[in-house]
């Protein structure tokens, strides 16, 4: 598989993880068995971490609540941000965690059943961690677009059905 084909494979699988491998092989112009083999080796190499569904939780009564939490920290002399980031990442409530530029140090996405659970997690678990100097919590009220996919109602195909 060429580098171009490998990238195309990853791009395809990122948006349609359930795609039929035989079809994907045709689309990429490779042999039928190559897609499975390449995916296996990309999994092995840790490039592919998993296959996930994209869920619009807002469509359900009970679902998940997300909050973006800006975290300011005093980095440790030796370990810098890594040590404290590792400590924060261990919590199951932490959905994702990034070291970012700008007015804060860490951007933590916290996920819970409801607002209270998330708020209490920040107050009782995150804020007291040694080295954390300040947190600001922004709850997600509605998600318009995630993972490159707009969650708004789909736009119609307005093209004429036959055109030159």
């Amino acid at each position: 598989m060429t580098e171009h084909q490998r990238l195309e494979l990853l791009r395809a699988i990122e948006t349609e993880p359930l795609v039929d491998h035989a079809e994907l092989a045709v689309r990429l112009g490779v042999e039928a068995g190559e897609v499975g083999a390449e995916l296996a080796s990309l999994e092995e190499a840790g490039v592919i971490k998993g296959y996930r569904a994209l869920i619009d939780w807002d469509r359900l009564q009970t679902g998940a609540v997300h909050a973006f939490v800006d975290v300011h920290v005093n980095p440790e002399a030796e370990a810098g941000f890594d040590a404290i980031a590792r400590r924060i990442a261990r919590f199951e409530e932490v959905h994702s965690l990034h070291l970012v530029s700008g007015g804060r140090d860490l951007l933590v996405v916290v996920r819970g059943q409801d607002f209270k659970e998330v708020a209490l997690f920040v107050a009782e678990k995150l804020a007291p961690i040694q080295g954390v100097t300040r947190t600001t919590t922004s709850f997600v009220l509605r998600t318009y677009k995630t993972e490159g996919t707009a969650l708004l109602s789909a736009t119609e195909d307005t093209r004429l059905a036959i055109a030159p």
Partner: protein
Amino acid sequence: MNPTSPPTGRISRVVADLAPSAIRRFFDLVAQTEGVISLGVGEPDFATPWSFSSAAIGSLEAGRTTYTSNQGLLSLRRGIVAHIQRLYDLLYDPTDEVLVTIGVSEGLDIACRALLNPGDEVVIVEPCFVSYQAAVRLAHAVPVPVATHAADAFNPRAADVAAAITPRTRAIMVCSPSNPTGAVYSRACLEGIARLAAAHDLLVLSDEIYDQLYYGTEGHTCFAALPGMRERTIYFNGFSKAYAMTGWRIGYACGPADIIAAMTKIHQYTVMCAPTASQEAALEALRRGEPRVAEMVRSYDQRRRLLVDGFNRLGLDCFEPLGAFYTFPSVARTGLSDEEFCERLLVERKVATVPGSAFGACGAGHIRATYATGLPQLREALERIERFLQSL
């Protein structure tokens, strides 16, 4: 409404004799049918990338709602020139060798009107975009078709082009990558046409609107960049296809200053200038559009392989198209004519395609199916076509 038929003779003979586009009939048929999956569309399924649209909105908000220069915004012409230079190492002067048109459609029309005298002949490689014949006829000139064949991957043979040339021939019209076949003419093929153009002192109208929708490895050959061709070529391109901007109506023509000046004269009297906000969107497309185009090309390429493979698997022989977003499989095996095939496929299985003969007589026995439609629709269309073939 007047119940009696309109008086004859008040429409000009040229227009009255012009056959309505063969696509039109299918369009009406599709309009009457529910739940159709269309592989009959000649435009991208992508929405215009938002940064292009927002540039137009910004220009409206800034109040730029007046005419531009007849030739188009100088900034856009400069952008076009830089783009062509980067791709093809071909240099045009933005002040007098570039004209921004209302799509390639207008460019072709005014080029024919600017260049042709009544009775002049234009050699047209077929099957081709439906407007070519009409543009020539409306200029009171005569289209002379040259047939191409699946066996040659729809590349014209130099001998066939040569045979179509007469003392009245003024120009040759070529389009690579091609609508409707998706064929890309080889460099050798285009060089053959170039030799004929030079030998017979002909102009070449080269419609390269699909140049960026190219899936081969050798790169697109720009006709005007062939040795000696810049001085006798009008290069047509536009934003409709590669940038998913069909509704914005922006194209351009580049060529020798005398020809561009003549075309500009007609353009100035008939349309003044291309729409201002659309020109701003096109400029943004040139400035920041490349990653978006690359994404779309990658997506088309996968769908192209899927559809070509699908047709071949179903026994509808389909040569590998290396450009545009069309496939042109043969339906000869079914024993149906291309028109019967398309009509029955539409009525019985609700898949819209276009008969190849709509693009010239030599397109008969083929259908045009576009892959500018979503993967789920392509999969479903292939299944429906399979069931249709089984039912024959």
